């Protein structure tokens, strides 16, 4: 049989600090929010402006979070976990009261 190359690596994510390059935008947004929001509300901790801590803190936490959902897990583990938490594990049968009787053809206007 003829052999065909399988170029599987072409979509492998480029990982830095354990975070794939596709997820860095979320890390950036969370860090920005962690810095800007306390700054806007004027929070202080013992007289020191809170953004000094919260910016670094949210950066560390978000990097840790994206590492946690990726390391040793199957792809899309977090999304499936979240979906399972938010939806019921029972998909019940449809009942007459669900009114599933809508036609996909619009009736002609008279």
């Amino acid at each position, binding site marked *: 049989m003829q052999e065909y190359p399988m170029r599987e690596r072409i979509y492998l994510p480029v990982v830095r600090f354990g975070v794939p390059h596709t997820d860095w935008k979320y890390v950036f947004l969370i860090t920005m929010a962690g810095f800007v929001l306390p700054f806007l509300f004027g929070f202080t901790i013992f007289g020191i402006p809170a953004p000094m801590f919260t910016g670094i803190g949210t950066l560390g936490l978000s990097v840790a979070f994206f590492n946690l959902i990726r390391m040793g897990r199957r792809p899309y583990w977090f999304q499936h976990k979240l979906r399972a938490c938010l939806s019921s594990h029972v998909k019940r049968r449809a009942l007459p009261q669900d009114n599933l009787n809508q036609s996909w053809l619009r009736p*002609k206007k008279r």
Partner: protein
Amino acid sequence: MDALTIIGIAFVALTGGIGLGLGLRLLRIGGRARRDVKRSAQAGANASTMRDELARRRLSQPHGSRRTTSIHGLTRNGLLRHADGSYTKAYRVKMENTLYADDASVDRNYNELARLLASIRQRGVVLQFRHAVHPDPGRAIKRHLEAQSQPKDAYMPARMLHTMDVAGLEAEARCSNYQEAQLTLWIRVPARHANDSSRARLGALAAFLPALAKEIRRQGALRFASAVATSWTRTNREQLTVRALRDERECMARASQIFAHVEHSSPLRLQPLAREELWQAVYLGHRMNEHAAPRLPQVEGADIRQPLCAEDIKGDGEYLLHGRTPVGIVSLFHPPTPIVTADMMRLLTANPNLVFDHTTITEFITLDQEQAKRELKSQVKSLSRAQSATSRRSPDPDADDPEAGVARSDIKNLRTDVSGGRAALIEARCYTVVYGQPARNKEELRASIASLDSYCRHVTAAFGKLSGADAGREQPEALRALYHQSLPGELDTRRTDENSKRRPHRSHV
């Protein structure tokens, strides 16, 4: 303090004391009576009444969220009409009679199929091959006996030898040693019309608010949360596309062009499923407890969601219980590397160890080629940035990441092929749905789950024989998310796209 006040206080204290004493006594008596009632035989009846009442309420308000389907109806010419306005056509694929066909002809089919996939220019078309396998209890022998010539015309010793041979095969078939397989191709073509309602978020919100008002009127303001959930499901998760007859015909004609293109260009012998056959395949795939499909409504535009969804799917473990049948999924997480051959999947489709109910599904999804090229370009940029960062840290060229080097070289070759029109990018996915035996009680369910685990291990082992492949059983959360789209006719562009991104199967043809 005068005498009248003293008498009044004494009277109040006396009355209060009597009341308190009586109350305490009544409480004691009441508690004792409740205990006695609980102990009595009547209590059993009361508890039973309460259970019955709860069960009666559950009939109209069952536990869990309503099962949904993307299928809305069946057209007169045998197409599945989806809720988002797209169409699906199903074909029975005539398989080769032998595994020992000439290698060159198998390769030719492989290349022609690849060319067919590359020639579909519309984005979001899903081609799903379903290879369904069942244990054969002797149907092939029956067909053989029906097809043979009159025995009296045959030479007697030859007839005896043949009968002994058939008896041997029959004994093997009774032990479930033979499998029968059916290959079908399902093609879903997305179709939008200029008059279709917008699918934008604002449009969804605009549809949600009137639906919520209607639900509140129906269920009452006290059940506000339930009304929100019901109306959200109705307007967002199952946003229906309703068209005028003329618009519907235009969309159907456009989708039919794709179906005709596949029929003409396919190297496989395709036989479209008739309307009744398609209904039967879809109905029995959605209703595992049933053995026959009811009569299909003849009215064009009839909603068939009610009969399709009239069975529970539940479970939060390693398996899902669809009706009475436990099911599991084994997925191919990484394709075979570094090479593939046309006959690789025979390890699954012609494997004597896999004599149980299972369906191997392979899906191909067409992409917008320009967007796919842009994604490749951005991937090169990301790799280059990573490479230069590594080089800055260490000037030693040996310190470069070999994975990144191979990936860059692969992308470079692929971009050359794609730009030259010799290759196109598609997304592909492969997984197997494994079914246990239907179970009617806990004992049977336990046995069925044990056999399901064993079947899944067999399928994983078969996938594992593909060199470089990585396969495994889906975890409970992923199973709940993926199972629904593995049902016949439920191939969904959006969901398929979402899930295939989790597996880097994007390949070139």
